């Protein structure tokens, strides 16, 4: 043992001294190793933290731990939507069967039914909405109802419409001055203008009560189309057993309003979705400016985007004016004048112009005035808590289906409130989801077949259509018909029990049985101990196979689809970068070591001549490079740890996009240093260093003692 130790000592000594003898070379190699270790440590720490963030986001918002869906489905389950929209899933026809089986699997705590889809929500343009309110009053009046309150509503609604007509006329009057169409178009514009003029006259409104429906139709069909606003929006929702959902996903919380009562129909609208798509544009822009100023340190004076928002807000005043009936408009003007220090006679439009003309100095004050004075008089969200909205979707049977649901509240997920991925999601009760989904029941299919048969509809092949239809002069081309008497009243009559009104449906409380016996598209499984995910996944598979349920099982990450692959993608990117980096490092280190070896051929030959074994020479070289690897690798890892710490101290990596917000599971990512990251980085740099020294070691080994004899010139 002793001779070994002596040899080892001198070996180390020579190796170290060689390193010190050529500081430039050692420095370069060291720098490479250091940067490599740094990249690995920082990269993998950040990635691990992202992984953790994703886990929190996905598991806490929709994913749970495992997901099951019908195995025959055409597409894969993508909880957050894929490139081509929603997942193409076959329905689970009876969720209760799935639940009964899967609840028995050990470690499965909860099975939550889900169905994710998108549908259209008609919001109506502002004009249509105002008219719809007026029509509601008219309907009641015409049905013989009356009373001071109804009269007051009716008057206020009519005044509002009238005001909108005036605003619209002012606007179109301006447009008329600019454009001057010809011919047919001119005639059309002229008739539009006449309609608008008529709707603005005192006489029209005086005579409103004479022909209420007629006047409404005139306003609806001749005037309202001129307003040209968007009239619908898309809502992404998960239909679910709402109580079970909140138990399963502790991050979910209602921020405004209340939960959908047990067993009732309703919707909880995604808060972030409401902010981005449903909020009054001006209010939204104010929020954005505030956020940019407070959180990102931007200033209106030197940021183009903020300036654009300020400009757009001035242009968006019309939207606010359209919302206000004359009484509220007056009240608002009166409150705004002192708040803004404006002259007594200044009209509302000018006041609002003043309010939205923000500078860095005035912004905070104006923001407060908007929310304190203006906002309470406005409808801030197109769809708000307490509203009943109509959701319309193309159902699986091919027909459109619509449901009315009450908006019970706004929903958000704690920690990822602002994420556009989780925050866009609304929660819908399962019954309404099923109505929209419109699963083609056997009964419905039979009805359709019967109708087809009764009509004698004949299918013909597209390619042979002309030959079949016109191939023979059989006299079918023309014929004579007799007039009939069509009684639509008899045709439309529906069975009494099917005539459940919207109000009945809203009030109906469904039993847990009803909820669970029916269609779902997928189900989230919540586990008691998430660490046993893999084992439970196997158990669930087995249970499904045993029960013949024909379901596919995926883990939360796979279920998250594209979003879930984000971390994998990042990993691939980091891995590729590291591989490329180390490949280059390998070449550089190898070259440097080859050169160093060649320079030392004589010395090595001498050592060999005076009795050094080959093994010693090789080891000496490896020790040399391993020392570089270890010392600089440690330094790099330490530096990496420092960087990670620095990032945390500096407030984390900000989530600048929605996707990042979601994957970070919050507004910023706080990377955490992992022991694995440090150990891994050291292992990697050592491995690379030693690999790159193998070839030079081979050269050194081949040096013969004869080289020592060579005389130098």
């Amino acid at each position: 043992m002793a001779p070994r130790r002596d040899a080892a000592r001198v070996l180390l000594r020579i190796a170290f001294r060689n390193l010190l003898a050529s500081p430039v070379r050692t420095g370069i190699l060291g720098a490479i190793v250091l940067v490599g270790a740094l990249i690995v440590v920082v990269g993998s720490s950040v990635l691990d933290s992202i992984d953790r963030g994703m886990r929190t986001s996905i598991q806490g918002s929709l994913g749970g731990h495992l997901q099951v869906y019908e195995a025959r489905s055409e597409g894969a389950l993508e909880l957050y939507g894929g490139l081509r929209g929603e997942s193409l899933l076959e329905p689970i026809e009876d969720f209760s069967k799935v639940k009964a089986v899967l609840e028995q699997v050990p470690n499965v705590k909860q099975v939550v039914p889900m169905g994710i889809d998108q549908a259209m929500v008609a919001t109506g343009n502002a004009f249509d909405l105002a008219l719809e309110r007026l029509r509601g009053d008219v309907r009641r009046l015409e049905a013989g109802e009356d009373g001071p309150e109804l009269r007051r509503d009716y008057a206020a609604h009519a005044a509002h419409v009238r005001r909108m007509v005036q605003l619209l006329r002012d606007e179109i009057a301006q447009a008329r001055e600019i454009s001057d169409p010809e011919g047919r178009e001119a005639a059309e514009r002229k008739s539009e203008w006449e309609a608008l003029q008529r709707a603005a006259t005192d006489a029209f409104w005086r005579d409103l009560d004479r022909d209420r429906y007629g006047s409404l139709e005139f306003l609806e069909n001749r005037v309202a189309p001129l307003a040209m606003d968007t009239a619908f929006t898309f809502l992404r929702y998960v239909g679910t057993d709402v109580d079970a959902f909140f138990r399963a996903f502790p991050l979910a919380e209602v921020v405004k309003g209340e939960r959908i009562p047990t067993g009732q129909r309703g919707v909880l609208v995604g808060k972030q979705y409401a902010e981005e798509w449903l909020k009054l544009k001006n209010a939204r822009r104010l929020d954005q400016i505030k956020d940019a100023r407070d959180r990102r340190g931007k200033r209106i004076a030197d940021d183009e985007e903020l300036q654009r928002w300020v400009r757009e807000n001035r242009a968006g005043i019309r939207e606010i004016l359209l919302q206000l009936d004359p009484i509220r408009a007056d009240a608002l003007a009166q409150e705004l004048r002192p708040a803004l220090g404006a002259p007594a006679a200044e009209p509302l439009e000018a006041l609002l112009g003043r309010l939205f003309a923000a500078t860095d100095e005035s912004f905070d004050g104006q923001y407060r005035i908007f929310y304190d004075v203006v906002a309470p008089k406005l409808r801030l969200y197109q769809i708000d808590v307490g509203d009943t909205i109509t959701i319309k979707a193309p159902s699986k049977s091919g027909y459109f289906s619509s449901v009315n649901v009450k908006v019970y509240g706004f929903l958000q997920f704690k920690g990822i409130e602002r994420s556009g991925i989780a925050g866009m999601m609304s929660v819908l009760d399962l019954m309404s989801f099923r109505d929209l989904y419109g699963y083609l029941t056997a009964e419905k299919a039979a009805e359709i077949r019967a109708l087809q048969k009764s009509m004698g509809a004949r299918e013909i092949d597209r390619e042979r259509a002309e030959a079949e239809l016109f191939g023979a002069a059989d006299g079918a081309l023309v014929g004579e018909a007799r007039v009939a008497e069509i009684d639509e009243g008899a045709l439309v009559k529906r069975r009494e029990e099917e005539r459940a009104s919207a109000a009945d449906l809203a009030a109906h409380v469904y039993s847990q049985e009803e909820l669970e016996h029916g269609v779902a598209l997928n189900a989230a499984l919540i586990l008691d101990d998430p660490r046993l995910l893999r084992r439970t996944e196997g158990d669930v598979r087995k249970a499904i196979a045993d029960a013949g349920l024909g379901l596919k099982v995926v883990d939360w990450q796979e279920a998250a689809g594209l979003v879930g692959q984000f971390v994998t993608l990042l990993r691939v990117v980091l891995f590729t970068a590291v591989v490329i980096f180390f490949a280059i490092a390998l070449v550089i280190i190898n070259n440097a070591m080859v050169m160093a070896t060649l320079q030392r051929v004589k010395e090595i030959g001498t050592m060999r001549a005076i009795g050094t074994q080959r093994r010693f020479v090789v080891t000496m070289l490896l020790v040399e490079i391993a020392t570089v690897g270890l010392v600089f690798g440690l330094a790099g890892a330490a530096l990496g740890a420092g960087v990670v710490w620095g990032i945390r101290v500096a407030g984390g990596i900000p989530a600048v996009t929605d996707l990042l917000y979601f994957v970070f599971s919050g507004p910023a990512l706080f990377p955490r240093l992992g022991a694995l990251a440090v150990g891994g980085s050291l292992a990697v740099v050592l491995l690379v260093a030693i690999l790159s020294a193998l070839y030079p070691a081979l050269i050194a080994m081949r040096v013969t003692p004869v080289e020592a004899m060579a005389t130098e010139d």
Partner: protein
Amino acid sequence: MHRALAFLALAAALAAGPAAALTPPELAKVVATIDERQRNSGDWKALCYMEAKEKGKTDVVYELVVYRRDEDDKQMFLFTKPRAEAGKGYLRIDKNLWLYDPAVGRWERRTERERIGGTDTRRGDLDESRLVEEYDAKFEADEKLGVYGVHRILLVAKPGVDVAFPQVRLWVDQATLNVLKRQELALSGRLMRTAYYPRWKKVFSPSKGADVWYPEEMRLFDEIEKGNSTLILIKEIDLRPLAANLFTKAWLESKSR
């Protein structure tokens, strides 16, 4: 004498053979005749069947009543079958197309280009024929469609007129002047839809004092989404005057209440 002249005219036409193009006045007459034969000066009510086939999906079928009052440019569809669809309807007043769903009791503004009930049918397919008003005609050729001799005519939308298809090509039966085939093209000339009208029926209209023609069967083939097709059958026609307030929201609401 008259007979002889008519015979001579016919002989001349036959002698000229298929190469004989329609002169501009003749062409204008053909197009005007197409409109005129389908025109009905009074109200119009038809019981229809509509069936849409889409690749990989179940058929969507409806029974519906179509109402027209051409002088006011008003139109209404009331769905009667299947049961779940009964009471839904469309109401068109000028350029406004409204959709009503009794299940939610709300009216929704739709665009004029709406695919009715999710089928390939446009509201224009069940409307009055206004070719003269909307298009300029150009004679293309005389040819055969199956066993029938037809005029092939290209229609191009008049400037400033808002129509669903800027170009339309018609195959008109030379013998009866019924449209047998219709191609609808985009501005680019791309073929969008092909329609066939293999059976025409006439019915005497008291208000017009003459026959009104209508296609009993329409087959619409989507040329963009190949494999999608829609069949419309007009089963019954009722030409009695309609209630004055029929083309209103209130009327349609009352039908499903």
